[in-house]
């Protein structure tokens, strides 16, 4: 699932998958509402969790998104 998620993020960020890692700063890509919409759909598809846009917009790096996913899985 994580690999599928990273592959999806690579497509959303329009960068090579090898660059996707937890410490990747979202300032290095276009982290706009379109990217956030796509990430909501991706997280649902990979992990069956539905994230909210406001929390995602506050994320600074990929690991922050992963933390949101883990929290959503627990709730």
């Amino acid at each position, binding site marked *: 699932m994580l690999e599928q998620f990273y592959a999806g993020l690579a497509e959303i960020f329009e960068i090579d998958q090898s660059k996707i890692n937890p410490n990747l700063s979202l300032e290095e890509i276009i982290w*706009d*509402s*379109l990217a*956030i*919409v*796509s990430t*909501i*759909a991706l997280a*649902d*598809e990979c992990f069956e969790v*539905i*994230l*909210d*846009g*406001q929390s*995602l*917009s506050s994320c600074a790096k990929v690991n922050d998104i992963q933390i949101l996913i883990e929290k959503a899985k627990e709730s």
Partner: protein
Amino acid sequence: MSSKAKILDLAGYLPPNTLTNADLELIYPDWPAEKIYDKTGIKKRHIASQDQTSVDLAIEAAESLFRNGKVAKDSIDFLIFCTQTPDYILPTSACLIQERLHLSKNIGAFDINLGCSGFVYGLSVAKGLIDSGLAKCVLLITADTYSKYIHPMDKSVRTIFGDGSAATVIGITEIGKGKIGPFIFGTDGSGGKNLIIESGSNRSPIDLNSSIEYKDTSGNIRSKKNIFMDGPEIMRFSLEVVPKSIHALCIKAKINLNDLDFLILHQGSGFMLEALKRKLKLDGNKFPICIQDTGNTVSSTIPFVLLDLIKESKLKSGNKLALVGFGVGYSWAACMIEF
């Protein structure tokens, strides 16, 4: 009580002016035409002219339906007009449509202020009127001109919405086929702020501040007089509500999802529809996506899909369809129809 209502005929109208992805690329240079299609599933939207209102679009769709010859104007005894962009705050736009279509004065007529869920709600009201004996032949028209409220530099909504109208006649089935129902309804007003035109009515009348333009974090420009849509929140709402509604509808209708011939969702955006198709794990042939040449025409998207299926001879008598409208409000509704 056994249902008597069925859909007798449909017709649609799209204004001739179009806004293509090539047109949008000239306005938003960092969004090439291919990227717009990739992100939205839309190639062109039809846009009402400056002097063309939702009532004008409604008239065109209705006259087109009557030209089909299956339903006569004098058989209509009720008119429902679903729009969020009426000609006036008052009088009721349905009254104006009655006059312009030269329908009988002995009919009922009213407006419904609903967007993406409006067609399914309209069907429910038509069915209620017919099954209760209050009407025999209901003309349901959906029409919107969202384009008039969209800021030209707000690509978040300008790439999505198109103008259009659909006319549907619901009448009495004589041979026991073509049932409408059951229905599932849903409302969550906490989502109202996520798809809204803030200024222009009584909560926030037009004043000097209404026209102040601001740029959001994605570079879109709008004022409070323009449509604002929180795309991420709409996606979140859709992923949460739509599958649950379909599941609830199937239980109520005592049918398995996979036994449906078609599942027709409100055509909000191609990206959203693809995400829902994957989530529902439904055969693509049963999940029509018809947004490419119209964009999101609000309450008319579902009838436009039905028209597309009819045109391509994909609908057969006895087909079981689920229709799901969802969006602005938040408001949602789902129903079964037997074609």
